[in-house]
């Protein structure tokens, strides 16, 4: 499923709107194309609609208007279970199954996809290594892991069935700055090897600049602008400049100290 013959964008939003049953509009007129193999970052403050946008892709929410296309096919044409199994999903709260060992957590999708147990075991060992965890951790329970380890397991679980897409909702948001920086670096290395189509939600500009091939800034349920990281920092768009300024003042007092040693 990775090498789809379809040449168009991997994911496409066409005039998408999302309204709650009580009439509140969370998203309007969203038009966005996500290319194969890119990491598109949805950046914005809380309530800007970035998580909603993400959940529309794997059908945890259903858009009220417009159309969303995955691999050139409208979401309505997809079997929702099949769709979700080819989209890895990582969330901030990780959501590991507390009653499953690390190995079983990672193997969930392969297991429900009916893989043989040897194949699952092989895959689990491979993934543990890939996300920088020791193989002995396989038999542990999530409660016995640190926050960073848990999030690594979350990433491994999302990658288990080799999905073409990865949706990540503030996956590193709850981690301390050093662990976060470490995981960001590993994410970049992993992404370089795997070349997944990634949609990444964050409110952290530095994270967006570091990980994104493009950044889509959202504000009050609307897409403001989509720019490359380089264009973003130099943009004169007032909302973009505001965002950049906010981060400049936030980090200026102890700059260098708050930032983790990278690369």
């Amino acid at each position, binding site marked *: 499923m990775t090498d789809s013959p379809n040449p168009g964008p991997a994911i496409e939003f066409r005039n998408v709107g999302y309204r709650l049953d009580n009439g509140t509009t969370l998203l309007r007129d969203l038009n966005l194309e996500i290319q194969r193999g890119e990491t598109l970052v949805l950046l914005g403050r809380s309530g800007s609609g970035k998580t909603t946008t993400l959940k529309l892709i794997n059908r945890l929410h259903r858009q009220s208007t417009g159309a969303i296309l995955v691999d050139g096919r409208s979401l309505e044409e997809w079997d929702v279970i099949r769709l979700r199994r080819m*989209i890895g999903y990582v969330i901030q709260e990780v959501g590991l*199954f507390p009653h499953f060992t690390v190995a079983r957590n990672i193997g*969930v999708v392969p297991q*429900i996809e009916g893989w043989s147990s040897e194949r699952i075991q092989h895959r689990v060992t491979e993934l543990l290594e890939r996300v920088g965890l020791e193989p002995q951790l396989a038999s542990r329970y999530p409660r016995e892991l640190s926050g960073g380890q848990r999030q690594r397991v979350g990433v491994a679980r999302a990658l288990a069935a080799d999905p073409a897409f990865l949706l990540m909702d503030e996956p590193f948001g709850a981690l301390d700055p050093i662990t976060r920086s470490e995981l960001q670096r590993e994410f970049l290395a992993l992404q370089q090897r795997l070349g997944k189509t990634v949609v990444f939600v964050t409110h952290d500009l530095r994270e967006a600049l570091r990980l994104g091939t493009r950044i889509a800034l959202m504000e009050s349920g609307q897409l403001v602008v989509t720019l490359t990281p380089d264009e973003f920092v130099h943009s004169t768009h007032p909302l973009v400049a505001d965002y950049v300024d906010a981060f400049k003042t936030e980090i200026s007092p102890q700059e260098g100290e708050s930032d983790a040693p990278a690369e």
Partner: protein
Amino acid sequence: MNVLQFILQNHMEVIDLTTEHLWLVGASITLAVFIGIPLGVAITRWPVLSKPVLGGANIIQTVPSLALFGFLLPAPWIGARADRIAILALMLYALLPLIRNTYTGIRGVDPAVVEAGRGMGMTDRQLLWQVELPLALSVIVAGVRVATVLSIGLATIAAAIGAGGLGEFIFRGLAMVNNQVILAGAIPAAALAILADTSLGWLEKRLSPAKL
């Protein structure tokens, strides 16, 4: 300690009545488990039903037990045998704790875990069997525990309609104004309740997923 003597002297009858008592409780709790847990699951899937179902089970609980036994007497097939009436009535009483605990147990599963499962492409059935029920199991067992203890106590009243059980001694003792005979029924019943409570309590603790 004449009670002990009385029990020893009549040990065959004590054993018989205890067995009857266990049959009434066991059958009613088994039925209640097979009806109450699916109902509890159903109202997590169709939340509109949660109010009427929980409300209905609640109302049943407010009916005095002796009256409920009486109401069921004229029922066809059920009313033909006293133990059927008793089992049905005890089952109805056991429903509320089972439905409620199944419902709250499943609703209490960490939403992030459920969302992760759904987002990964688990079907509703897979989510229920692999995630929600195992994580709610200790709460559901707590419901079974409450229902069982309640039912052991209530089953003594079943003797009033001739369904047997340890209530026989209690009613006989009341009629004879003989405390020994009353206690010969009450003590084993209390012992059963304590035994059920501790063993199911132990199970509940063992099944608790979050020993965090």
